[in-house]
């Protein structure tokens, strides 16, 4: 069984590296995160401190550095989600599941191999994201006269956990792709949900204590919790005058478990519906 899993993993790696999707998405992720990180670095670092002296934002160097570095996970997470979704929907679109299931008729092994490979691919996208958020971001903080805090253990903890977050987004993408199966639908869902629907839901949920308790379990909130910070979870700290609920975010480990829960629920739902159905 281990040998069969290994063969499926090798095949999935070759599928993933066989098209231009992985580096095109890496490029998009890098550019997007650089944009956000530079913007944050300028906002929260020098100018932020300037405003802070006048009673506006009051972020210390560590908090602002962490916000800049989390740009990868709190904004770029759509990318591993899409890559994971494509890993399944491309096979549906090009009708290659026939070959995949003929080579490995135990479809659970195939699903597990896809989840594993896309988790690792998500971690690697996390590295690309960190090169943008921490690499370019730290440079910008330094250039604007701030302290990039690269010696702080909290910052390095955030780096490590953000890789886990991106990996789990890749696996969630596989579950979503296996459930939805339509390539166009998965891309639209991934973009609309991560960039519009969820931020709005989290903002609204944050207005009352009861809804904030539920909002912590939204996938993006769980991802920010695992990473340790994120713009949406730190809105309150940015502007103390905002009427935000006082429910603390989940602990990192709990955020990770919630994300794992999304993987299990989506992949499990796909398994129970279309994954084992007739394929021809």
């Amino acid at each position, binding site marked *: 069984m281990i*040998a069969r899993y290994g*063969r*499926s993993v*090798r*095949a999935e*790696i*070759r*599928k993933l590296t*066989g*098209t*231009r*999707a992985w580096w095109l998405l890496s490029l998009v992720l890098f550019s997007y995160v650089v944009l956000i990180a530079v913007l944050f670095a300028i906002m929260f670092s020098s100018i932020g401190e300037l405003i802070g002296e006048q009673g506006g934002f009051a972020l210390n160097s560590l908090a602002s550095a962490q916000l800049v570095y989390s740009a990868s996970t709190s904004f770029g997470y759509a990318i591993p989600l899409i890559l994971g979704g494509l890993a399944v929907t*491309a*096979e549906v679109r*090009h*009708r*290659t599941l*026939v*070959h*995949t*299931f*003929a*080579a*490995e*008729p*135990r479809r659970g092994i195939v699903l597990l191999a896809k989840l594993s490979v896309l988790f690792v691919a998500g971690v690697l996208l996390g590295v690309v994201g960190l090169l943008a958020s921490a690499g370019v971001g730290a440079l910008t903080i330094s250039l604007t006269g701030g302290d990039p805090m690269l010696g702080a253990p909290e910052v390095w903890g955030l780096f490590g956990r953000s890789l886990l977050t991106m990996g789990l987004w890749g696996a969630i993408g596989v579950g979503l792709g296996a459930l939805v199966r339509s390539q166009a639908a998965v891309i639209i869902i991934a973009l609309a949900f991560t960039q519009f629907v969820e931020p709005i839901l989290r903002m609204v949920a944050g207005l009352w204590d009861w809804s904030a308790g539920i909002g912590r379990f939204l996938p993006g909130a769980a991802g920010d919790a695992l990473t340790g910070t994120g713009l949406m979870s730190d809105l309150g700290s940015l502007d103390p005058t905002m009427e935000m609920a006082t429910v603390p975010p989940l602990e990192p480990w709990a955020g990770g478990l919630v994300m794992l829960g999304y993987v299990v629920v989506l992949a499990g739902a796909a398994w129970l519906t279309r994954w084992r159905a*007739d*394929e*021809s």
Partner: protein
Amino acid sequence: MSTSPSGGTIAAPPPRTGAPMGPSDCTVEVRDLSKHFGQVQAVSQLSFTARPGRVTGFLGPNGSGKTTTLSMLLGLTRPDSGTATIGGLPYHELPRPGLTVGSALEATFHAGHTARRHLLIQAAAIGVPDSRTDEVLSLVGLAEAANRRIGGFSLGMRQRLALAAAMLADPQVILLDEPINGLDPEGIRWIRGLLRQLAAAGKTVLLSSHLLSEIQQTVDDVVVIRRGRLAFAGTLHELEHRVTGETVLADAADRDGLVAALSRAGATLGEATSTGLRFHGLTAEAVGVAALGAGIPLRHLSEAGGGLEQVFLDLVDERQPPAAPHPGTAAQHPEEGQR
């Protein structure tokens, strides 16, 4: 029966480990197989056998259930009832299905992958060395196109690539769905030679087609299905045997009288052609005698030239009721197990 192939390119190197290679007897066996999709009964109570060392042609019109049957053999589609086994085991219970069975069900590929990439993916998935990809690419004549994206391939090239993938493991069983579709005459001649060579090496070869003439020169055994039911199973020789003297073209000014007279004599009416009416079950001589006895002057009488293809077309004739394929021929269906 079990001579090794002449070219060294077909055979894969022996497996590196003592991994189980699957059953030694690689007979493909379909037993009482049924499958429906919604209201459509795609396959009904279908039984046939494809044996090692022989090329079996799986024939039927488009939509008669060929692909569904092959996809049940590969475990891609779940039967409603019945079994489809390879060497006595369902596909998913074979120890290494990808090494035992090579299949080309549909020539569908990821358009963005190169030919070599597709084969490298399949090689990894079934566990054969990467070097096999170049070997099978040369075998099917795609070595030049190895690094081109499949999106730009012609149907013929896709067919060759599908065949290359099926040959990766040098499997004992080869299942091909319409492999000749889209091949040029040179390609058709080449694939015929290859399939003969594989059968000569003791492999079980099962290929589907909607045209008997397309595979007539390649197959030893023939399985014909119509609307998902078995219409004929036997050797090509047995099918050919039904041609001689049994189908006759005859015509007369009084067609109704001719049909009535020949029906009384035991013939069944086939289709009307440009040269006359087609009758089954009587020799040309018997038709002449019957017409003479009824006082009907014939203006045409000949043994049907359509031959084998006509027998096939009659077998799959949609206008005939599915339960009784052909009066006077049903009894001749060789029963599986008696041979």
